[in-house]
């Protein structure tokens, strides 16, 4: 009391009442954090789709393009190509086609990669595509097609497996495939079959 009488004017600056602002900030931060920081969105580049599979390449083209196609079916993948016999490239015996199916033979049907249990065998797909890439290092285009009911996320996972080259050429199992590191060429990621073209199965 005595002090106050001596000094009638308090030289201390009054603090602003920041409590409402604090309340606002405390509410806003979790909101914005939830909205953005947790969800990191990326993109996958895809070329304009080609409609109608197995369209003949222009005849005047000097070198016949490989026209590699990965088809996603309900029961697994199938690799086909019109520019080369994939079975020969991979050095495996062609699968016996039940019945006489000239269409399958004409499109150069390659090996089939069956699902392992409920899941698609992305590891086997990667291993085979690396082998094909070794034989055709200049080719980058791969057609991707699927049965009409295949969900979009399977397509994304398939693209993830075939676009990027990893440090090893083949992986024995899914665990090794998951922990694999991406192969770099200088600063850029080494690509396997980066130019994915969507096609529609007939």
């Amino acid at each position, binding site marked *: 009391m005595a002090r106050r009488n001596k000094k009638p004017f308090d030289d201390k600056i009054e603090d602003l009442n920041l409590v409402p602002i604090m309340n606002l900030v405390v509410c806003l931060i979790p909101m*914005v954090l939830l909205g953005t920081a947790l969800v990191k969105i990326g*993109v996958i580049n895809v070329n*304009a*789709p080609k409609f109608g599979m197995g369209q003949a390449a222009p005849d005047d083209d000097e070198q016949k393009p490989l026209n590699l196609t990965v088809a*996603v079916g309900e029961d697994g993948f199938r690799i086909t190509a019109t520019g080369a016999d994939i079975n020969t490239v991979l050095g495996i015996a062609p699968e016996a086609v039940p019945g006489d199916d000239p269409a399958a033979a004409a499109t150069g049907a390659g090996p089939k990669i069956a699902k392992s249990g409920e899941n698609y065998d*992305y590891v086997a797909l990667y291993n085979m595509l690396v082998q094909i890439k070794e034989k055709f290092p200049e080719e980058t285009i791969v057609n991707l097609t699927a049965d009409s009911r295949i969900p*979009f996320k399977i397509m994304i996972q398939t693209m993830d497996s075939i676009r*990027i080259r990893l440090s090893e050429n083949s992986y024995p199992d899914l665990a090794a495939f998951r922990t694999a590191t991406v192969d770099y060429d200088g600063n850029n990621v080494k690509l396997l079959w980066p130019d994915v073209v*969507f096609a*529609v199965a007939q």
Partner: protein
Amino acid sequence: MAHHTKIPKKEHRTREEIIADWVAEQAQAQRKGRKARRLPAGDVGVTINSLMDAMTIILVFLLMNYSVDPLRVDSGEDLKLPASTTEINPDPSAAVTVTARGIVVNDKAVVAVKDGTVDKAHKGGDETSLNIQPLFDALEQEATRQKEMSRLAGSKFDGVLTIIAHEETPYRLVTEVLYTAGQAEFQKFKFAVLKGAQRGG
């Protein structure tokens, strides 16, 4: 004698009683002391200044990020993005969103989707047709607008379209959307995905 009897009485007080007395005395002294000191209001409580500083900075930073983000997706039950291992960041472009219930072009709903298909009435009455007419109209309008803008700006129409699709969208519907966009002169597509997935599903 009377005096004598009093002293042992005092000595007979239990330890608990002595402690209780002492505590009461202390409390009284403290009450008195508090009244005497009378701290100015405002000096009591936790110091939150540093916390305030940090929070303000975080808020500004987050808000900046929020507004700069070229692609914002309001995920929900009908729009869950598939996860991918991609490292490519999105660029601003026109966007088509395919949810489980409809197709949206730049925040404007154009056609409904039911059980993963568009009603054939919107495809010229033909079930096998790939062209979704309302989507084509909306995209053609968008392409015309972009072409006009790039003409005025002296740049080239790049034909980039971002496709934000629900993870369960059937492949057939995706190709229908891509085909329709191709008809409207969009040539390059970017699929929006969530980053940080595991390879091989």
